[in-house]
């Protein structure tokens, strides 16, 4: 019996590892989210206008729920811009806020982008915040940096300082957060392509490109609202 004991122990551990790994995989696998067709319903993803770049009749719409302090979101920012340049009129990009609680300055950054939006410069601030993420995310007082960014973008600083505190900016961020929660979004970036969430494993430039191509090849593209 002793002769076979190491074989039995090893086989038991192999089995236990496979079973526990499979159980963990099932528990951790992110749900396949979709934005309901009836996006006019309260709390649905496309009910109100997000920040939009691209033509309204584009066959493919990317909706990103992002957090300006999230490194993976920053990593995807430029690749998404590149996709916009590559696909031109065939792609529309929508951004929505989902600042995570564990990111100290994420909400403030979202408000800064909304304050920039009130002067018509949301996307410029969006790109700048992602590009400079490693700088401001470690800063003690981010307001100083955000004011400097507003200056770089040629915004009216006094108005920017007032707008970042405004109820309008806060309401916009909160509205996006409510939409995210209603859709079951838990992490960032969560990206929908034509209302279907892109699996986390495909959240990279080739994965997104493949998903867009698949959406373009789809026989009847799902009409996506903002």
């Amino acid at each position: 019996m002793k002769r076979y004991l190491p074989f039995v122990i090893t086989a038991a551990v192999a089995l236990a590892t496979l079973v526990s790994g499979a159980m963990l995989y099932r528990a951790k696998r992110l749900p396949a989210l979709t934005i309901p067709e009836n996006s006019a319903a309260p709390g649905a993803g496309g009910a109100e206008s997000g920040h939009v770049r691209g033509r309204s009749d584009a066959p493919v719409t990317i909706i990103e729920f992002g957090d300006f302090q999230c490194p993976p979101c920053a990593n995807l920012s430029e690749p998404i811009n590149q996709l916009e340049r590559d696909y031109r009129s065939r792609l529309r990009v929508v951004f929505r806020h989902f600042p995570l609680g564990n990111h100290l300055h994420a909400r403030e950054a979202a408000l800064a982008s909304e304050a920039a939006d009130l002067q018509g410069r949301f996307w410029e601030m969006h790109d700048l915040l992602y590009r400079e993420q490693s700088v401001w995310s470690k800063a003690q007082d981010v307001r100083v940096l955000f004011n400097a960014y507003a200056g770089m973008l040629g915004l009216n600083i006094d108005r920017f300082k007032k707008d970042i505190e405004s109820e309008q900016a806060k309401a916009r961020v909160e509205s996006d957060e409510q939409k995210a929660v209603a859709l079951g979004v838990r992490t960032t970036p969560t990206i929908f392509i034509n209302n279907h969430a892109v699996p986390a494993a495909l959240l990279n430039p080739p994965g997104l490109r493949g998903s867009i191509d698949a959406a373009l090849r789809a026989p009847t593209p799902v009409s996506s609202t903002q």
Partner: protein
Amino acid sequence: MNTSRFRIILYTLAAIISLAGLADATYLTVQALTGETLVCGGSPDCFRVLGSSYARLAGIPMAAFGTLAYFGVFSFATFAAFGYTRARAFLTLTVGTMFLVTLWLLYVQTFILHAFCRYCLFSAALVFGLSGIVVLAPSSRRSP
């Protein structure tokens, strides 16, 4: 304590340590397969390490290789504890390889990524422990 008993204790200890490593590596493999390391939810440092290109080899998560390696260590240590002398040679080879890979990964985290993943550091500590055991274990001439 005689040499044989000392050897059994050391290999049993190695098997137990490798079980902890197996759990750690399995967890990281699942994280990589579900794409959890590619989204925010954990610490930024975790993403910098586990979401980097160094966390995969030919598209396969490094953690998956770690899972296989720890399972190998567990198996060889178990067989070595039961007196299989050849298992000791395989154990030494596996742990030696893991030691070198761990040094490389620590170098990457320290000097290239400038970020540390706590699961990776835990695994590194386990590998150093296993290396110590392999060095300490007396040689055996007995075969089953």
